[in-house]
């Protein structure tokens, strides 16, 4: 088990190294002077100077890379060209809003998917199963930003029930006001990831159901409910945990789009606007930390796997 863990840790380290190299290469392959490419940007001249200085163009590439990496390690992610403030500071300000949006969406999508997917698998070929099959296919086909726009047109403008954008109406608004703002972006996020999860849950549960020990559990006279909760779901949970962890990049992307469409004051919208404005320090820091976050959470999923599965726990 320890060996497995170390092996995964080692792989994660390699991945992080690769991520840093790729990010660095992308940053350096930007043609010409990136700030000149955008004459529309009105920038603080000192920031431009600092940016050029940061690039250390006179040094050889490996030296530049090491310098850049060591600054990253020290927590110096550079300053935003637009706000002229350290990147982590800007990110932390926006983190709560993003978490408020993504965590409920993630839990809701996963919870709904597990219950619906299990139901569909148990009634394989039934009406619910077929309906869900078609609905999730449609859900996967919906461009999320378009869904957001349609939701906004319907429920904010067509029928003015819900606020169209932002997180709160006024500075000191109530909890219910924030909740009302949450409804549309969360719906948009859930629609996409639910379809993705539910198909996987159904597939996994079907795979477990076809295993011999389920047939044998039935031969031992257990009720269906008992079999589902004691034998099916624990075994299905292993792959579901993995896929939930692997879907984190999609969740990240979802947040980007949802926050942009609904002007949600979180990290995602900031990333998109920074990218559009070619705010390089922000773009690079965000790419690096997003990839690192995903790599780390994959590692955590492996850990969780080790805890659940005795086959791995008892390996020498």
């Amino acid at each position, binding site marked *: 088990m320890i060996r497995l863990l170390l092996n995964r840790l080692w792989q994660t380290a390699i991945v992080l190294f690769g991520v840093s190299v790729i990010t660095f290469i992308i940053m350096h392959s930007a043609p010409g002077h990136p700030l000149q490419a955008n004459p529309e940007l009105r920038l603080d001249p000192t920031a431009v100077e600092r940016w050029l200085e940061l690039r250390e163009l006179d040094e050889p590439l490996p030296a530049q890379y090491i310098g850049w990496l060591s600054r990253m390690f020290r927590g110096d992610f550079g300053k935003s060209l637009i706000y002229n403030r350290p990147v982590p500071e800007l990110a932390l300000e926006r983190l709560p809003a993003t978490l408020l949006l993504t965590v409920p969406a993630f839990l809701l999508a996963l919870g709904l998917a597990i219950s619906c997917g299990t139901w569909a698998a148990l009634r394989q070929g039934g009406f619910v199963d077929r309906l869900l099959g078609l609905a999730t296919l449609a859900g996967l086909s919906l461009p999320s930003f378009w869904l957001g726009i349609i939701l906004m047109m319907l429920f904010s403008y067509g029928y003015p029930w819900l606020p169209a954008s932002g997180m709160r109406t006024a500075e000191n608004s109530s909890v219910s006001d924030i909740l009302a703002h949450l409804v549309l972006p969360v719906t948009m996020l859930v629609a996409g990831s639910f379809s993705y999860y539910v198909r996987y849950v159904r597939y996994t549960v079907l795979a477990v159901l076809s295993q*011999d020990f389920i047939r*044998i559990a039935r031969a*031992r006279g257990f009720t269906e409910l008992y079999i589902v909760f004691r*034998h099916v779901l*624990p075994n299905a949970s292993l792959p579901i945990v993995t896929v939930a962890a692997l879907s984190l990049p999609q969740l990240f992307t979802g947040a980007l789009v949802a926050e942009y469409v609904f002007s949600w004051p979180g990290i995602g919208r900031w990333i998109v606007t920074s990218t559009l404005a070619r705010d390089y320090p922000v773009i690079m820091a965000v790419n690096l930390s997003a990839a690192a976050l995903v790599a780390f959470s994959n590692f955590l999923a492996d850990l969780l796997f080790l805890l659940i599965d005795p086959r791995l726990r008892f390996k020498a």
Partner: protein
Amino acid sequence: MLTITDLSVVFPAGNVQALSELSFYVAPGETVGIVGESGSGKSMTALAIAGLLPPAAKAVGEIRFWGRHFVIGVSSNSDWRAIRGSELGILFQDHSTGLNPLLSAGSQVSEVLRFHQQKSKREADNETARLFSLLGLIPAEVRMRQFPHQLSGGMKQRVMLAAAICCRPKLLIADEPTTALDVSIQAQILCLLREQTANAEMSLLLISHDLGVIAQLADRVLVLCAGQLVEEAAVAKLFSNPAHPYTNLLLASVPRLDLPLALNVPVMEDNDEPTNGCGFASRCPERVSKCIYNPPLIRLSDGRKVRCHNRR
């Protein structure tokens, strides 16, 4: 004790008649063997008795089990559930994948006891430990705590046996219980089955393609060919003096340690076209013209039953 009447199983999708009008009984304490080649309908018989037929199968027939009456296709799943695991134990071949990999061996036996006999966890664990020792899973406390992947194939099959007989069923159905095991482990499992059926006064329905296994354990044998019962006889009579040419072929084909291989085994090409007549006719050395009609099952003077035009 167990009576099966006119059991037929059809798979409409593939137009396959898996079983046709099979009738037999199992007396209390008796071991009945069912033998036949793959596709002869052996396993379907086991599944039908337990009400576990796949939904793609269309089946008719009646089953009487200790005064209970089941009509296949009519009786509901909860009717069967009343006997499965408690009065009717089932042991399958798949020892390698038959246990839940996430639960310890002991808990997979004790959960059966707790479910059917409402025992407390401690009572069930004690009973499981007793059963483990009895079946040679020793030291029982250690084996109970182990997970399936830590046990050998033979040990897993013994855990499965423990789970099947822990509620002292009146009938145990063993479907190819030793097929995937090494011969030394197979011998152990067969001895355990022999011992358990004798001590616990449990009937055994033993399904196997291996005539050796059948000869060792069965009191009475049913021979299935292409979904039909072609011969039924006490084990000694069947092996010493087979009545049906199919039984004869099976016996001549099985390699033995004490006799050379019968080089005159009739080697006939399989015919894969379905027939309405005798299912063995295409391979039968004694085939006559009327074999294109299905012969009836007749009772011979010595009590055995046979389905062949040439045995009148």
